[in-house]
């Protein structure tokens, strides 16, 4: 893989991948870097690059989280990393970044990862299903249930078509 190809991939996907990995571990940058290096070592990029990257990052982050738990026996790093998930929001009408991160952090991991991959990673439910080893329908159900939970926590209105 040419350096400019790698640079473009890092520019486009690294921030969302770090956000995705941060749900499990305290060293998301290392996990994402390792995933990019694994991609470079492959020589030829895989056919479904984005689900492949998310799957490698997911596995790496879960492994890193297990290793960290064995070392420290503290609670999951996702809890103390939650406030750093988003850049501070400059839109006064928008959601508060810290409140949203806290609400997301309180979701079950299998729901949260789907919401993060869809909203910030831009993956379709088929691509998410490929990354997490599930079906697209299950991913969509978890996504919808997670949004409903977030709606309650954040006090947001239900969409008009769902009322």
């Amino acid at each position: 893989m040419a350096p400019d190809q790698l640079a473009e991939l890092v520019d486009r996907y690294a921030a969302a991948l770090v956000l995705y990995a941060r749900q499990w571990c305290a060293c998301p940058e290392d996990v994402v870097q390792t995933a990019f290096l694994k991609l470079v070592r492959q020589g030829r990029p895989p056919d479904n690059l984005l689900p492949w990257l998310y799957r490698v990052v997911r596995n790496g982050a879960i492994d890193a989280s297990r290793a960290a738990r064995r070392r420290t026996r503290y609670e999951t790093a996702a809890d103390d990393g939650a406030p750093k998930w988003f850049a501070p929001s400059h839109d006064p009408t928008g959601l508060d970044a810290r409140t949203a991160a806290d609400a997301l952090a309180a979701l079950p991991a299998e729901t949260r990862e789907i919401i993060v991959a869809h909203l910030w990673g831009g993956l379709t439910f088929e691509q998410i299903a490929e990354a997490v080893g599930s079906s697209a329908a299950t991913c969509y159900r978890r996504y919808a249930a997670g949004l409903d939970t977030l709606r309650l926590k954040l006090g947001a209105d239900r969409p008009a078509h769902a009322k």
Partner: protein
Amino acid sequence: MSTTPNNPTPPPDPLAVALAKLEPAPHGLEWNALMFAAGRASKARALRFWQCVAGVCALAAGALALALFAR
């Protein structure tokens, strides 16, 4: 004839739209370290090949030296 589909796509959930507007924190990857490691990783296979070649050559040279010494 109507062209309206039977199941029109619902408008996006406003909460999902509001959430998606939040920017993920900057990735924090060290650019130079990443590119250096990527360069090394991309050459890892070639490096292993030449290490094997060097090992084989060293073994052959050792065997030849032993054979010469035994004569």
